[in-house]
């Protein structure tokens, strides 16, 4: 997946990847990654868990703007099946750190 990500980033499109295999991602070095220590097949979490899926998306988009060093992997704090996710959670400010 990281190789596809790098091909896309290299044509001038900003990318954020979700990883479930930290060691592979650390080797491939895509530009921006959020990592979850969750089982394969579940990058957004559990089936039907809308609040959980939104939380992962918000965290990924937050990293998209926060990461300023190519190759950064952000370790997300969510534990598999041991978190409570709020359906009312609002997205963070998803804007460039330095306005163009």
């Amino acid at each position, binding site marked *: *997946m990281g190789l*596809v990500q790098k091909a896309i980033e290299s044509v001038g499109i900003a*990318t954020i990847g979700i990883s479930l295999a930290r060691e592979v991602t650390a*080797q491939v*070095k895509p*530009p921006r990654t959020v990592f979850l220590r969750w089982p394969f*097949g*579940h990058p957004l979490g559990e089936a039907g868990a809308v609040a959980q899926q939104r939380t992962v998306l918000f965290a990924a988009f937050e990293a998209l703007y926060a990461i300023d060093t190519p190759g950064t992997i952000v370790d997300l704090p969510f534990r598999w099946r041991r978190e409570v996710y709020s359906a009312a959670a609002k*997205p963070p400010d998803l804007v460039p750190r330095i306005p163009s």
Partner: protein
Amino acid sequence: MADLTRFKHQLLARFIAAFPALGRRWATAAGGWESAAAIPWTALTKPLHQCRLALVTTAGVHLRDQPPFDMTDPEGDATFRAIATDTALDDLTITHDYYDHGDADRDLNIVFPLERLRDLVAEGTIGSLAEFHYGFMGHIIGTQLSRLTGASAPEVARRLRADAVDVVLLTPA
């Protein structure tokens, strides 16, 4: 024979799902198939509510009426499938023997969160979605890997660029 090989892969995927640490060890051992060249970088200068976003997954997602990924080639299948943004999730399926997609079969959003992204567009968090999103399968090695890096991935990048996409979210299996 091909059926037996697929069964073996599917069984292994279920085993890895039951023991995540094993999966990580497998992924580490199998590494080296990809090398870390220079890291490309594109600065994102727009807020997300003005961005056009596309979804790219390596979870083996494709339309039911598209040809499935080839599960008989041990090197994988480096081709991709274009998925229109207004596609109903019920019209999609997963062909990928190398992970347990039982949960994703029940709710495709856990690997291909198209409905969640539509919600975020409706709420004004994301500007718009690309006309097409793209499905690959992971587990690509050998000659299929050169096909991925030399042809399929650049072609998808070119199409995304032509669709004026600002941001791509990538999801694995």
